[in-house]
């Protein structure tokens, strides 16, 4: 099928199948569909939209159809994305299973693992979270100490993870576990898939400066994981984790690049503009213009890196550069939103105060340059792997 035909058919199908309410901008977190065993749909339309898209395999357009995907080519997936954007359609399903575990399973998983785990991800039936960081292993992730002991066909897992996003709402966790006690630290980690619906797994939300609790502590107390749910070989976990982190970085970056409130609309909200639309504060205007320039530069760079990757040059460690720049830009955008809004930006929850979304987004954005590897770690990676600067 030609791309033009595909575009025409896609447009017609979306017109027919995307409920009107799913074409309105997202107003609050409840509008984002994460799926999972305990998921409560915010509306009938949200449910219908997910089901219809999952039926087409379009929650994961480029995955093979056998695993619940759409089997689309990159070009077709891009057309689908453009057509979704054209009607302002919401994402039918957001999921760490799609963004992170899926790519790792597609690359490292066995056929049986793919068949078992990928389709429920595509349909939004199982919600996944990521168990990487530990209290003693943040930037120095490879020092993690959560321990797994293999006995027969089962690992017994003990230890603690931290910053597990939405662990309290998730069904399964993919976790890095030290299974090879005597191996060098990079070779002693395995990548285990653990069912959280068991007595040995418990979670505790962490309250953040934004007032929300998207992250948890996750505790393993003689938790069980079947050996068939180990992805890759025993001790291959670090390699898989690194591969997956590059996907996480891409995810954080696309979130950072994603629109949201910008300082110009914020200034309009606050009434701080002249009749001709010029921002009233000339220095703020200059700062916003720099952000616009860097935003254009970042978008162009994302496209360039993608194009070059398609031409076989690979993204590689440049993902770290993108993560660093994208997250710093998103922080800057949030800071300028707050400046442009003035005291209105300070309003917190309360009857007359709205829900403090701007401030929450600003507070949340602080984490962008910490999660998925801090900015400083990204700079280390760029220096060593892109610029070939030697280690101390």
């Amino acid at each position: 099928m030609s791309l033009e035909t595909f575009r025409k058919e896609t447009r017609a199908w979306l017109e027919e199948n995307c409920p009107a309410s799913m074409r309105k901008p997202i107003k609050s977190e409840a509008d984002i569909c994460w799926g999972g065993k305990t998921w409560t749909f915010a509306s009938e339309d949200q449910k219908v939209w997910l089901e219809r898209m999952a039926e087409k395999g379009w929650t994961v357009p480029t995955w093979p159809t056998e695993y619940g995907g759409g089997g689309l080519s990159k070009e077709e997936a891009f057309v689908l994305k453009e057509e979704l954007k054209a009607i302002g359609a919401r994402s039918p399903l957001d999921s760490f299973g799609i963004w992170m575990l899926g790519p790792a399973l597609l690359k490292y998983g066995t056929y049986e693992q793919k068949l078992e785990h990928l389709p429920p991800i595509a349909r939004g039936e199982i919600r996944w979270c990521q168990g990487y960081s530990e209290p003693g292993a943040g930037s120095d992730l490879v020092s993690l100490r959560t321990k797994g002991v293999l006995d027969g066909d089962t690992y017994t897992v003990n230890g603690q993870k931290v910053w597990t996003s939405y662990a309290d709402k998730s069904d399964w966790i993919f976790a890095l576990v030290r299974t090879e006690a005597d191996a060098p630290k990079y070779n002693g980690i395995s990548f285990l898939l653990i069912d959280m619906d068991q007595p040995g797994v418990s979670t505790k939300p962490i309250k953040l400066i934004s007032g929300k609790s998207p992250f948890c502590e996750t505790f393993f107390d003689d938790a069980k994981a079947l050996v068939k749910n180990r992805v890759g070989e025993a001790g291959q976990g670090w390699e898989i984790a690194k591969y997956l982190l590059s996907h996480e970085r891409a995810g954080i970056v696309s979130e950072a690049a994603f629109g949201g409130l910008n300082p110009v609309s914020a200034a309009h909200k606050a009434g701080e503009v002249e009749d001709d639309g010029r921002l009233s504060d000339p220095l703020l205007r200059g700062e916003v213009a720099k952000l616009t320039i860097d935003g254009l530069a970042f978008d162009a760079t994302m496209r360039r890196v993608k194009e070059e990757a398609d031409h076989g040059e690979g993204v590689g460690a440049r993902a770290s550069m993108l993560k660093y720049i994208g997250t710093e830009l998103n922080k800057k955008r949030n800071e300028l939103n707050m400046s442009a809004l003035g005291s209105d930006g300070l309003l917190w929850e309360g009857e007359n105060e709205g829900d403090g979304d701007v401030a929450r987004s600003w507070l949340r954005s602080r984490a962008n340059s910490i999660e998925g590897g801090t900015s400083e770690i990204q700079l280390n990676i760029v220096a060593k792997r892109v610029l070939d600067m030697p280690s101390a």
Partner: protein
Amino acid sequence: MSFVLNEDEQMMRDSARGFFGESAPVSALRKLRDDNDPIGFSKDLWASMAEMGFCGVLVPEDHGGVDLGYAAAGLILEEMGRHLTSSPFIATSVLAASAFNLAGTDAQKVEHLPKIAAGEAIYAFAIDERARHNPGHIETRATKDGNGFRLSGKKRFVAAGTGADTLIVAARTEDDKINLFLVDPKAAGVSLQSRRTIDSHMPADFTFEDVKLDGDALLAGADDPEKAYEQILNAGRACQAAESHGVAVQAFDTTLEYLKGREQFGVSIATFQGLQHRAAHLYGELELSQSLVRRALTTLDTQPSQAPLWCMAAKAKATQVSRLATSEGIQMHGGVGMTDEYDIGLYYKRAQAAGEFLGDDHFGAGEVARLSGY
């Protein structure tokens, strides 16, 4: 629109890289400087650039050029930036060629474009009347006089002005619109004062006192002369950004090599995290600059109506990044970065001068805001 170079472009870049590395390395700029060269560039080099097909990169094939577009011009300029090549390329092959393409009559195209492609004449583009770039501030006047005009006014810092055979001068006509006029710098009433700038270039200030021009001195081929004027300037900005980017990239490469070779405390200073982070940050900035430069140039070639925003953004970013890369270069070189013997200081000076031409990063940011409606 593509970020990845096509075959023609790769060939152009490779031949430019080889040519400038061979014929116009940094030592050539040092020689022009040390010899107090009266025009600040080599006419022999210019003739060789014409033979390579560089001079006519924007000239249509009918008029003797190779017509490869702005993206290719940018590749040539990036290599010139890397080698600090001093030449009238932007003045003649970009600004003047664009002026004839966009605003010339057929007769003017036939007369002038082949000369540009063949490297037979140097054209300079006279815009600014003050020290900071302000393309709307034009007080030079061209008033009707019989079939021709009388031109009066002043221009400052005209790039390649000292060695130019013909000037293209922005002046207001009686309808108060900005139009472009061909002026012979040797004509009665024209006075020239050469200026020497930190980068060893020789721009010139011009005064026009009641200079008599023929009727065909007016570039009369554009429906909307002011729009053409803006398009020419934007093309110049994107191309100047490409040169600035080349300056930045080479300064960075040179600095990185220095870091890897220098030892202190008994170890390579490239192992120090304080320097690694500065270098890695700079690398990211260079990537941003490169994407914008390429995007601006390809947009000029394929969707000119969308180009102004990209050209302004590219000029602002390349200016900022080239200044950052060269000043960081000096810092990371340490004391030797302050000496004339090392090249990094020459890059610092060129980045400053190239950044000023056609508007620096502050100017560009203001224009980006205006074009974005805020």
